[in-house]
């Protein structure tokens, strides 16, 4: 069979040469039309902004990954937020107005997150924004919120850089320096591990941050890091990295990734004969993890924001309501993202009530004053860096041969 000769590429060049003059002419024309369109868009956008505070409802935006590789994060948060908004509206709303939530899907992609948040602010005229879970997506959208002076409350992004984007960015969860410490302590003191390998997702701000904090803390506690290697979100074959890890013979492997990849990693690790525990962070928290990883996940541990086994009354009521509302859809137990979504919406509503206004700047000031708010995931107090200081729990994963999983509470660590 033959090979494509030089002939074709010459012809292509000729074609391009012939078209060049018209292309230039078109470009000038396009530029003119483009600037006209841009001006119109600006005009439209500025009128869009004036829609705020007009009717007897307060519009809040939410962006999340309703589809994509981290889809259960977005879906769970959405359920939690909707439950909170329903509860608030049933008890009379905020400042005599009903809350209305506008939800956008960012497909779990940072650039999409930026686009949909811009749309929420400019087109829907929201006064505040809830979202995201994945830190890379929150980091992409935070500058938009900060630039438009719209407060953003992230339910579950744990990377420290998220709230460092500006004074309008808040979160209702702990941050990774703490989560890394919790898992390092658990590995060194509870599991008595000496030598741990790290397998991090190089494409995710969350995973890279958490791996670094784990590494620093575990070394400080006297452990050694056998090897520190990486994969990229979206990879499916991890056998090369896992074979390299196996050669180092570690007592445990720290995999601070998201559930889709972690499930496959667990499967492939067990297949290659790695029997030591795998450990991770709150990015594991999804029922999809059990489905993808199956029995390979038995004897693995991760840190999380809350455990459904906690006897706390507020939490147990939330679990009961959640079951009643979503149990029929096969989603009987709320995961941490649902609980954090619920809390994030309540913290925001509470700030509006205390501010006595839904103006973004007043809400921002009130949010910064949040102190001792009792929610599902515990007592929320925001520090001067707009991060919540909260305890973390460590959970053990147990999955049966049918892929039905549950998390068993191991210990709780206070900050």
């Amino acid at each position, binding site marked *: 069979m033959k090979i494509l000769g030089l002939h074709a590429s010459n012809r292509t060049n000729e074609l391009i040469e012939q078209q060049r003059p018209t292309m230039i002419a078109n470009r000038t024309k396009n530029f003119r039309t483009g600037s006209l369109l841009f001006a119109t868009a600006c005009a439209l956008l500025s009128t869009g902004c004036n829609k705020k505070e007009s009717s007897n409802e307060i519009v809040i935006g939410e962006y999340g990954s309703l589809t994509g590789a981290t*889809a259960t994060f977005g879906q769970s948060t959405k359920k939690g937020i909707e439950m909170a908004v329903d509860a608030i509206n049933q008890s009379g709303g905020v400042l005599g107005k009903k809350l209305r939530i506008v939800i956008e899907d960012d497909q779990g992609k940072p650039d999409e997150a930026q686009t949909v948040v811009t749309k929420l602010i400019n087109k829907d005229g929201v006064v505040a924004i809830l979202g995201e879970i994945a830190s890379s997506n929150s980091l992409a959208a935070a500058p938009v919120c900060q630039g438009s002076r719209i407060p953003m409350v992230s339910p579950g992004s744990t990377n420290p850089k998220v709230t460092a984007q500006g004074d309008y960015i808040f979160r209702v969860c702990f941050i990774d320096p703490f989560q890394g410490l919790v898992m390092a302590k658990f590995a060194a003191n509870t599991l008595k591990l000496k030598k741990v390998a790290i397998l991090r997702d190089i494409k995710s701000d969350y995973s890279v941050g958490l791996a670094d904090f784990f590494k620093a803390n575990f070394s400080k506690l006297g452990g050694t890091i056998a090897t520190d290697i990486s994969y990229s979100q979206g990879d499916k074959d991890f056998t*090369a990295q896992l074979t390299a890890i196996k050669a180092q013979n570690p007592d445990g492997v720290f995999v601070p990734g998201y559930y889709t990849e972690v499930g496959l990693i667990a499967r492939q690790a067990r297949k290659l004969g790695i029997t030591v525990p795998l450990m991770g962070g709150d990015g594991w928290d999804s029922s999809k993890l059990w489905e993808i990883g199956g029995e390979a996940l038995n004897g693995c541990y991760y840190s999380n924001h809350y455990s459904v086994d906690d006897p706390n009354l507020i939490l147990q009521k939330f679990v009961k309501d959640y079951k009643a509302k979503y149990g029929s859809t096969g989603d009987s137990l709320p995961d941490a993202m649902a609980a954090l979504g619920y809390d994030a919406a309540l913290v925001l509503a509470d700030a509006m009530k205390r501010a006595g206004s839904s103006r973004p700047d007043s809400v921002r000031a009130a949010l910064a004053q949040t102190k001792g708010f009792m929610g599902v995931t515990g007592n929320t107090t925001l520090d001067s860096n707009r991060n919540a200081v909260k305890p973390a729990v460590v959970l053990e994963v147990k999955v049966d041969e049918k892929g039905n999983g549950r998390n068993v509470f191991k210990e709780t660590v206070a900050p």
Partner: protein
Amino acid sequence: MQTFFQQLINGLSLGSIYALVALGYTMVYGVLRLINFAHGDVYMLGAYFGYYAARILHPYRVVPWIDTLAVMVASMVACGLTALLIERLAYRPVRHASRLTMLIIAIGVSLLLESLGQIVFGADPKFFPQLIPEKTWRWHGVIFTNQEMVVILVAFILMVLLNLFVYRTRTGKAMRAVSFNLDAAKLMGINTDRIISLTFVIGSSLAAAGGVLVSINIPGIDPLMGVMTGLKAFVAAVLGGIGNIFGAVLGGLILGMAEVMVAGYGSSTYRDAIAFLILIAILLFKPAGILGKGQVEKV
């Protein structure tokens, strides 16, 4: 040493998938001089057709091997029909236009399949049912699974069958004739339209087989899984010498090995980068690919 042999197995199982997908690129290129960019997405469709076939067949399951074969055949037939449709609707109308037009259409079809996949199948990853219960074997500390062995074995059986078809049958001969000279083949009484359609069907059913085989081994499928695999398989086809069936197999295996060795011994961050660097290096010294013959096209 044990680690090295384990990495060889890992590379072989990854490489045989690239090889299987690369065959489709190479066949279509050989016959039409078209780089069918939608091929990677046909591979994705293959995985999804397999997923649905496995779910439909679930109540009637007999023996793992027969189930797997049934799912694979169902997916190959479905993908073959899809390819027939794509060729008829998208490629045939522009067959006599410039090559650039066809290439752009191929990219368009690729994007269309990806977007349709996200709408129809949903953008979140799905779990592919375990058709073959996993068993592992050890040999001097090197671990094999039955799933990996099935992947490698089936891939090679399909490649041998393809080779027999192209070099030992009348239709295969016609296919080679079309690849040498379309007009001359037509003058010799070959129904070239049929041969070209057949090429698409065969290439796409191989990609479908690849999709099902990968999903047996790595059970997470999503609508964008074909993007990177398609690109890598294309690289494999070029590496081996595009238009050459053995070249595609060799290219696939080299690329799979290179990736695994880079990730296992070097830095996994540069896994893809180094794989592509190898491609550039080989093409610098052997522009026609490893097994490709540099031919001067007669004018």
